[in-house]
């Protein structure tokens, strides 16, 4: 990890932070209601659509947005591009938050949450042919690994803290952690590769319930490739926003080169997506599927627009345009996941689903919580790189 990272400092309880707390508070109240009254009373889930917003957004899109750590780690540790190192800590932080909250979302999404602890423990009951088991174990393990990766900045703060117990704890664990970090990083690269593709496998197993425009044996690969592109977009997105709100200098040059990599990955994704459709003879459905055709083309246009922007040097030099490009990419990737999990999924005649109000507000509350924890972390722990003086606002 970079030695240059420093806490941003400043007050925590700012006015936007209080707003976020209020939104989260509403979510907590609704969550209490969900646990008292049950899923049927608080959600629009039904037997045809047992997976709704909480799976499609909180888990599937949420972990994809949490893949910044994975995407940057591929660059830094596998392709050995050291110059991106300062992006690792914030990316890992968003990953840790995204994954932790996805895991939390699972707890209130499943009906019998009190049995969740059995998934990692009751190994003699494992169904080793289950894609969902793979996802569950991998996500649980990855959350654990991400927080180990996040441990050094926390321990660094403890080391200089006032409590002698924590100081000693940090002094003994930090060297061990730093030595074993190479294995942790290897694990952190392996786990998302496994479960992000499995999130595609899960819907591949839905068979004919998924529209042929989306249903393909390449679904696991498409999910994996798009998640890497989204990972870079998240880093661009969050770095630009942090710089903007915290009045720090923009990392435009580095983010620009990330955008270029993202563009190539997106082109690869689009190539697989379209060639697969042509090969399977399903491309005609892109024009004859009514609303689904619309969503298909919306996805394609968003991906293409984002990739086209990222290929333009003018865009890559401008933080505002870079930010737009990242937004387009995140919306495209998110839409691809929503389409696969909900829009193009048809469990049979008569079934319909649109998230209920409590579902929406619980999800919004969770996002608010994620932002709050992120703010606390960057202000109190050495996450963001560079001790540059505050940038003067024009």
């Amino acid at each position, binding site marked *: 990890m970079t030695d240059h990272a420093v806490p941003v400092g400043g007050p925590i309880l700012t006015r936007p932070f209080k707003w976020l707390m209020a939104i989260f508070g509403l979510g907590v109240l609704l969550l209490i209601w969900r646990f008292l009254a049950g899923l049927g009373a608080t959600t*629009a889930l*039904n*037997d*045809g*659509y047992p997976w709704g917003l909480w799976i499609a957004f909180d888990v599937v899109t949420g972990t994809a947005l949490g893949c910044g750590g994975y995407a940057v780690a591929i660059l830094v540790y596998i392709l050995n591009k050291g110059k991106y190192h300062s992006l690792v800590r914030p990316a890992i932080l968003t990953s840790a938050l995204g994954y932790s909250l996805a895991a939390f979302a699972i707890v209130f999404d499943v009906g019998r949450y009190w049995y969740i602890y059995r998934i990692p423990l009751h190994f003699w009951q494992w169904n080793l042919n289950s894609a969902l088991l793979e996802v569950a174990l991998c996500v649980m393990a990855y959350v654990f690994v991400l927080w180990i990766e996040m441990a050094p900045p926390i321990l660094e703060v403890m080391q200089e803290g006032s409590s002698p117990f924590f100081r000693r704890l940090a002094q003994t664990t930090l060297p061990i952690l730093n030595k074993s970090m190479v294995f942790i990083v290897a694990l952190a690269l392996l786990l998302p590769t496994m479960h992000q593709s499995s999130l595609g496998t899960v819907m591949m197993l839905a068979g004919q319930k998924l529209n042929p425009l989306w249903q393909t044996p390449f679904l696991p690969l498409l999910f994996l490739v798009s998640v890497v592109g989204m990972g870079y977009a998240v880093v661009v997105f969050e770095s*630009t*926003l942090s710089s*903007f709100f915290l009045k720090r200098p923009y990392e435009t040059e580095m983010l620009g080169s990330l955008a270029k990599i993202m563009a190539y990955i997106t082109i690869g994704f689009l190539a697989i997506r379209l060639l697969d459709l042509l090969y399977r003879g399903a491309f005609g459905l892109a024009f004859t599927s009514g609303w689904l055709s619309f969503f298909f083309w919306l996805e394609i246009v968003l991906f293409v627009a984002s990739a086209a922007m990222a290929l333009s040097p003018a865009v890559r030099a*401008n*933080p*505002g*345009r870079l*930010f*737009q490009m990242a*937004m387009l990419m995140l919306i495209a990737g998110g839409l691809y996941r929503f389409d696969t999990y909900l829009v193009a999924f048809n469990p*049979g*005649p*008569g*079934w*319909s*689903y*649109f*998230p*209920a*109000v409590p*579902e*929406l*507000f619980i999800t*919004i509350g969770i996002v608010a919580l994620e932002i709050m924890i992120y703010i606390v972390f960057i202000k109190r722990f050495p996450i963001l790189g560079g001790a540059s003086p505050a940038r003067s*606002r*024009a």
Partner: protein
Amino acid sequence: MGKARGFPISGGSVSDKEASGVGRRDFLKACTMAAAAVGLSASVGKAWAEAAAKGLKPSVIWLHFQECTGCTESLLRTSHPAVAELILDLISLDYHETLFAAAGHQAEDALKSAMEKGAGKYICVVEGGIPTKDGGIYCQIAGRTALDMLKEVADKAGAIIAIGSCASWGGIQSADPNPTGAKGAPQILEGKTVVTVPGCPPNPYNFLGVALQYATFGTLPALDKLGRPMFGYGRVIHEDCPRRPHFDAGRFVQQFGDEGHRLGYCLYKMGCKGPVTHANCSIQDFGEIPGIWPVGIGHPCVGCTEQAILWQLPIAATVEIEHPTPPALYPPISPEHGGVSPVATGVAGLVGGALIGAGIMASKKLMAEDKATTKEE
């Protein structure tokens, strides 16, 4: 079970049956199954078993006239646990020309003694049409016409059951031009209650249900205006047909052997009379073997229980359907599950719009800032 023939015609208790080769348990089981088969409760079956064991078996006089013996054959072939034998144990079949070992005068004496002994109590079963033309000379047994025999036997009977379509209205003998003037038992015995069990042949359980109810309780089941028991003939075949979903979905066999025929589509267009034929063929397996009835094997129903159809309408002719679609009160095939709350869509729209708007505003500010810094530099 196969040794049931050995069990005594009268006397003894239910437990005695074990000595005679049929276990009490098996006997009770067969009786309750027969009860269930005709839509009566299990306790009725038990009552039958008790009655049979006490020797209260009804005396049955079975008359054969213009017929093919198909009704008797199907009754003997009720395939489940040797029901054929149990019929002979549950009822006392005192006169039956096909099943008799006796012949000639011996047989006629048996008829006479059965009528004398059981006067006013025995069941008279009629199988076959009765010729009436030229004094009924076209069917005679022991020098007596069917007309005479029927009148004499039915006169002292406790109950009269006409089994099969021939006995119910004349059957194939009565088809145009009806050379022998054949009629059914109800037309000959006007003024008397004749239970008709039409069919060619009828499901043996429909007959058994009537006979055993009379034997046990001395009553007859509810009948429709043609004398058919409601439990077996209250509904038309079409209502409970296993191919009904195909009818409702508009999937029809167009030609024998076509794709739809192989896939088991509705046979209406091939002339199926199911929509107007009152019978329980579609829910009561014939002889308890699933699927062995015309529609089950891919042939349209010929309407063998209906005088107006059998031998009157060509097999290929289609019939009028009173209610082509199910009533609106019936639950739909695919009910609506889940819905879209307008409030939720509104909230989702607002949140989504706010996020996109905030994103656009942020990027605008970013671009403005960038321009300003470039100028400063």
